[in-house]
């Protein structure tokens, strides 16, 4: 077990090759912590000679970093916020890259009884009705935005339960999962982070497969007009590679336990 952990650490922490050419990619904790980058980025670097420095943040923070010009390219998952970023002239064009899905996770005992339903709206209404503990990211991340959208579509305002059953942790996916595991709470997670997450305790996937749980990722180069220092050429080759056949195949090839974590769909966009 120890050896396996060390190997995992090694592949996450491979020292960067001493490349002069590099780009800074601001992305989400879900993509980094799922291990996707560890799989696909070495392939990109081998193909182009461009190293990628990943700063993993929530989508909201990643967009802020892009707005300030502190990254060359963004890979994020909050369509509405992405569109505002592009409309604001901070970067673009936004290209669709891949998707996976969100899953509604909760304690195996399932006190709100949501495991029977496949309707995420109904599940959220039952959680609110039962006033069962629910952990929210509360950090302006893509997952947080998706969660808020789902509550709204379900016709429930969880803010009323704030400080009681609705608990905003203001942290990344992993800490939120740790919190939910400790409190036997429900929460919304992206599937990739969930699959890679180890401290599950009693947590289980209770609701999945609803079309509204789609989690779409987009890639956006930061505007060189707005920030002249950005590495526009390198960022463009990253985007081209990612939405091209090699990148798409690399994404499809990343699996944990035989299960794919992300589904390339650049050509659909």
């Amino acid at each position: 077990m120890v050896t396996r952990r060390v190997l995992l650490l090694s592949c996450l922490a491979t020292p960067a090759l001493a490349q002069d050419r590099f780009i800074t990619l601001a992305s989400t904790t879900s993509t980094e912590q799922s291990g996707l980058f560890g799989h696909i980025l070495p392939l990109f670097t081998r193909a182009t000679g461009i190293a990628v420095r990943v700063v993993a943040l929530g989508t909201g923070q990643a967009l802020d970093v892009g707005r300030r010009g502190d990254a060359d390219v963004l890979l994020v998952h909050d369509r509405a916020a992405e569109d505002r970023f592009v409309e604001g002239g901070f970067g673009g064009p936004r290209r669709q890259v891949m998707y996976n899905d969100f899953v509604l996770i909760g304690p195996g005992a399932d006190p709100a009884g949501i495991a029977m339903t496949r309707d995420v709206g109904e599940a959220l209404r039952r959680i609110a009705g039962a006033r069962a503990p629910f952990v929210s990211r509360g950090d302006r991340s893509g997952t947080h935005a998706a969660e808020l959208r789902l509550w709204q579509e379900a016709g429930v305002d969880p803010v009323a339960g704030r400080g009681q059953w609705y608990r905003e942790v203001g942290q990344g996916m992993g800490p939120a999962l740790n919190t939910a595991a400790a409190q036997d709470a429900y929460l919304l997670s992206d599937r990739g982070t969930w699959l890679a997450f180890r401290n599950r305790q009693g947590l289980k996937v209770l609701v999945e497969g609803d079309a509204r749980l789609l989690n779409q990722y987009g890639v956006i180069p930061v505007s060189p007009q707005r920030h002249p220092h950005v590495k526009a050429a390198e960022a463009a080759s990253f985007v081209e590679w990612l939405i091209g056949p090699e990148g798409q195949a690399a994404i499809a090839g990343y699996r944990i336990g035989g299960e794919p974590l992300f589904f390339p769909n650049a050509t659909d966009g």
Partner: protein
Amino acid sequence: MGDLGSAVLAAIALIRDGDPAMLGILGLSLRVSLTALGIAALVGLPLGALLAVARFPGRHALVIGLNALMGLPPVVAGLLIYLLLSRSGPLGRFGLLFTPTAMVIAQAALIAPILAALSRGVLEALWEEYADQLRSFGAGPWRAVPTLLWDGRFALLTVLLAGFGRAAAEVGAVMVVGGNIEGFTRTMTTAIALETSKGDLPLALALGLVLMAIVLGVNMLAQALREAAGRGGA
């Protein structure tokens, strides 16, 4: 076996195998924290000595300010340096954000006030003893500063260790300005934070144990140095 047990075993394995990725992270942690310590010492120790010997208007306020800065949350120090170094900030054109240099700057900013405040306390006691004698030798406050720094060197070693401990242990500042980039700005503490958020608590704890072992080693080395010097003279 419980998580604690696996953590200890994992820590032993990490050290025994000399896992290259971990060694890289550990090396960066030490390099960043020791460089930050060196820079902070160049500023903080003379400032502390000057505050111990000099009497000028505003000194009292400065001392209180430095004492308060000892409690500066690392993430706040990190945020201030982030805003300075960001491409949209005043020092943006140097492109230092998300580099080890940024982490050094943030940690130096974090611990320089600690070194200044602690060394002022230590050196003020020494100055009380030395003041008349040094004035009798004709040494003014400016000349007294290097004398106090040299003669207080053993007490200052403890001050430096406190600063090093703070730098090596903090995660807030390096996370914000370094970005926890794998193989580039990932340190022991940000790796611990990452493994924690991935739910791999035993590995996170194992890394923590390794870090503590290294900090303990540095402290023991300093203690040995102090004892050897104490025997030799001075």
